[in-house]
């Protein structure tokens, strides 16, 4: 493992250098207790100790709305669009990196998504070891407290003035050295980083799944036909899609288009959609394959707990707890849902 030690006063200079070539986004407090990734400039105060940014980082790689083709209605031709600004996401927590790693795989699978991949290739990710855990988070039990890949650099604060920076890619290492040589980390600094990880892990363990995450697919699948359970869980669901909106691993989209006022040229774009919205599975003629809120609710927990696992070998929920916060009805909570299923099945035996 290659790692360097970077001191707080060095960071601003580095950021200024990087900003010449990239759009930089950093976590910052936007309201008391609310954090968001916002464009960096030297006036922005980086919230090194943020617990959770409210919206997810998928918006930087899979934007809420994105052009996919431009078309010409006269010539009846179309051309691809790939917009991929160079950007740096500085301060991404491991569970969010894990979410992006999942998207990387899902977008590459079967038919590679060129728009996603173009953006991803131009996105540099600097991870950051969390020092606080959001009250709704349970990522430590979702196998998401540590990632081995998906970052260019991984930063751990080892003292008020110093970061232990682990190298994840050559690109990241080059960026670190852009102002000249930097200090190689010694064993004490490495040990400090390890202890920082153990400390946050201990804090995160306060709220967890009650069973090993790898049993989730089997458990949730057993409950698929338990309509009473899903109906009860979803009975106050407003089908608003807030849980989809804030989920870092939700990537479903709709495709729409618009033409100019002369009906000559136009653009087709995709925009985020949500499986919790009523019309999501509706087909021509009005038949809806998930007409009831509880069917859509079940689909979401099946997808996070089983379907994604069947594709990738890991859960589609990374335990960030964003949906728990965002749910208007207060019913979205993967930890509770999966724990309740586990309890029920355990008591059956």
């Amino acid at each position, binding site marked *: 493992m290659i790692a360097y030690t970077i001191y707080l006063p060095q960071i601003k200079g580095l950021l200024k250098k990087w900003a010449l070539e990239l759009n930089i986004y950093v976590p910052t407090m936007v309201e008391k207790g609310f954090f968001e990734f916002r464009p960096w400039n030297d006036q922005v105060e980086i919230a090194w100790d943020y617990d959770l940014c409210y919206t997810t980082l998928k918006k930087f790689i899979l934007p809420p709305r994105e052009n996919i083709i431009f078309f010409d*209605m006269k010539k009846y031709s179309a051309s691809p669009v790939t917009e991929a600004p160079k950007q740096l996401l500085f301060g991404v927590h491991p569970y969010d990196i894990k979410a992006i790693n999942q998207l990387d795989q899902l977008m590459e699978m079967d038919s590679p998504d060129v728009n996603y991949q173009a953006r991803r290739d131009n996105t540099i990710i600097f991870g950051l070891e969390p020092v606080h855990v959001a009250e709704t988070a349970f990522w430590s039990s979702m196998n998401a407290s540590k990632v081995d890949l998906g970052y260019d650099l991984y930063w751990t604060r080892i003292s008020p003035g110093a970061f232990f920076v682990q190298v994840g890619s050559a690109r990241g290492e080059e960026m670190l050295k852009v102002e000249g040589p930097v200090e190689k980390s010694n064993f004490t600094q490495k040990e400090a980083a390890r202890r920082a990880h153990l400390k946050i892990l201990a804090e995160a363990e306060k709220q967890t799944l009650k069973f090993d995450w790898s049993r989730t697919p089997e458990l949730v699948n057993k409950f698929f036909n338990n309509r009473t359970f899903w109906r009860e869980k979803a009975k106050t669901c407003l089908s608003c899609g807030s849980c989809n909106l804030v989920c870092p691993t939700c990537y479903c989209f709709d495709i729409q288009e618009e033409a100019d006022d002369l009906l000559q040229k136009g653009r087709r774009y995709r925009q985020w959609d949500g499986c919790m919205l009523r019309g999501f599975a509706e087909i021509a*003629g009005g038949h809806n394959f998930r007409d009831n809120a509880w069917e859509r609710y079940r689909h979401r927990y099946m997808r996070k707990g089983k379907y994604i696992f069947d594709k990738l070998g890991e859960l589609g929920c990374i335990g960030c707890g964003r949906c728990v916060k965002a749910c208007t009805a207060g019913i979205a909570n993967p930890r509770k849902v999966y724990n309740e299923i586990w309890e029920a099945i355990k008591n059956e035996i």
Partner: protein
Amino acid sequence: MKSDFSPYVPRSATLVSKQELNELVTLFEFAQDSGKPLAHRPGQFIQVSVYGVGEAPFSVSSPPRTDHNNFELAVRRTGSVTNALHALEVGAKIGIRGPYGSYFPMQKFVGQDFLFVAGGLGYIPIRSVLHYMLRHRDEFGHITLLVGTRNPKERIFTDQLAEISKRNDLEVLETVDTPDHGWKGNVGVITTLFPKISINPETTNVATIGPPVMYRFVIQECSKLGIPQNRIFVSLERRMKCGLGKCGHCQINGLNCCLDGPVFCYTDIAGLGEAL
């Protein structure tokens, strides 16, 4: 990655002819402007674009052909894209992507008997398989075709059905749910035709396509006849938006209908709560 390729870019095709099949359904014949054949297999679908309106998935209704490059879609007027298609005049252009999805494994059926069960617009994709078989008639055994429609007015491909009914190398049975004064044929849902057919369950494969409510009843009848599940094939309708397994709209449990389907062997979906 810099790339000029995007799977979202349609190719252009030109409307060669159109023919009204009933009040709402029209048959469209298209030719790709590239001059190349569509190269689809029976049961596959394509994404059709009318620029400025939108894009929607349609099963190809014609069989793959080697003698010319045109292909056919039969479309019911129901939403914005289908209405725009109906408004097209011969010579107008559309955009197409695909063909996408799974297809009927025709090689597996060689030398075997076949039972088609088509409900309503389900006949449109069935037609691709049926006419493939009729074009290669000597490769297949006994063919039985059951067609069910809600009422006589909604029947489609009536001329073609009348024509193939005359052939002595296949059996065609039709029914309508609600007859009108002129209807002299069978009345009742499609399963009422099952007692009238004689097939050998040992050698018969089934393709059934129709409205969502139809499948479980047809499969039940097939099971009663003794046809094993692994020889029953369905094609399922879902709302494929991207056709690439990404957008999530066509999910059936963990499957993507656009990649894993639309054609499924019944054994692959039998346990899935959201399939039928």
